């Protein structure tokens, strides 16, 4: 088994669906953070068979966990301080997401006005359905997983 060292302060994102860690890396904009990141792909998991893990060494207020919840709220977020797990954060679906997904409705105003942000609001928390703020086009978080 591959060994990656402990981190002092930051996050360990565990139970990421195998193969999804790079997508998370992108959405969390980790490329823009000047910090140590370990991407562990296809780690063995008793619960999932295979899973991905992301270890991020950074100040704990530097990550946007709302986006994480939107992508997959079953991910375990361990907050690390002084090398120890200090807290396990529960992820809840954000009420609004901005510029994470794009509206694909060709009749939507966002299709012709490029500078507009793509904003989706949580329309149905039970079925994890988001709708475009402008045209109400549906985006199902479950269907996309």
């Amino acid at each position, binding site marked *: 088994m591959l060994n990656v060292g402990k981190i002092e302060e930051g996050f360990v994102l565990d139970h990421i669906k195998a193969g999804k860690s790079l997508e998370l890396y992108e959405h969390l904009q980790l490329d823009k953070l000047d910090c140590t990141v370990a991407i562990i792909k296809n780690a063995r998991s008793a619960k999932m068979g295979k899973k991905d893990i992301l270890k991020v060494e950074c100040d704990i207020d530097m990550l946007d966990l709302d986006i994480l919840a939107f992508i997959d709220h079953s991910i375990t977020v361990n907050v690390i301080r002084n090398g120890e797990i200090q807290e396990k954060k529960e992820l809840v679906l954000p009420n609004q997401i901005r510029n994470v997904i794009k509206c694909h409705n060709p*009749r*939507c*105003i966002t*299709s012709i*006005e490029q500078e*507009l942000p793509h904003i989706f609001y949580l329309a149905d928390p039970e079925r994890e359905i988001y709708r*475009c703020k*402008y045209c*109400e086009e549906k985006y199902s978080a479950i269907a996309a997983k």
Partner: protein
Amino acid sequence: MRHLMSPLDFTTQELDKLFDLAGDIERNPGKYAHACDGKILATCFYEPSTRTRLSFESAMTRLGGRVIGFSDANSSSAAKGESVSDTIRVISCYADICAMRHPKEGAPMVAAERSGIPVINAGDGGHQHPTQTLTDLLTIRSLKGSLGGFTIGLCGDLKFGRTVHSLIHALIRYDNIRYLFISPEELRVPDYITDMLRGRGIPFREVIRLEDVMPDLDLLYMTRVQKERFFNEEDYVRLKDFYILDAQKLARAKDDMLILHPLPRVNEISVEVDDDPRAAYFKQAQYGVYVRMALILTLLELA
């Protein structure tokens, strides 16, 4: 400052107030003839719509205000590539209120976010057309006496019909209404609407033949099968004549049933029906002016 993007932007109490005002305008037009003196309405129509635009223009003119605007995108700066956000910032310097129609869904909302004046959505693609819904509600309330306690039949294109979906959303906030959806199989009302009605325990039935339910109806809302919604001509031709309301079908209807239609009609209501006292679709157009007058006064805080 308030805008109108969707018919659900107003609570039922606010709608009552709006419709009371529209009723007063109908009874005492002279009282409001100078209510908007010195005010300017901008009609920004990025796609042609004679009926809605003229209704807004008539409403503002009857209030003593003036109207400026454009009636298709080619005669506006949109043709030069100006964004809706920039256009509304400029229009805000010229007018006191704006009615906007745009082929792209959500464009009036983008305008409202950047606007210094109230914006009324006068129709955005297949999305919302709130002043049509307010017109329908005012017509029903004025001619039936209340918004509730009736059976309404919605007939024709219930799949793509924006006015029908919007009217149902607005009516479910009122009590004791039964719905009969009359459409061919291909143009049935979408599942999300029937799911919503089931979830709220609201009674409804879906039928194919208009004749079968005619005696049950207190209101019949007819719609046009819109050619632009079909990908092939063959389907359109097959379905466009599916329902034609004529004197023979109407013979089985209640004496006080009302026939509504958002207009324009093609052939779904035979012209022989126009003189029937139950035909209310031209009165509906008149109520459209009253409700737009009331709306302009309300949004300008002059009511």
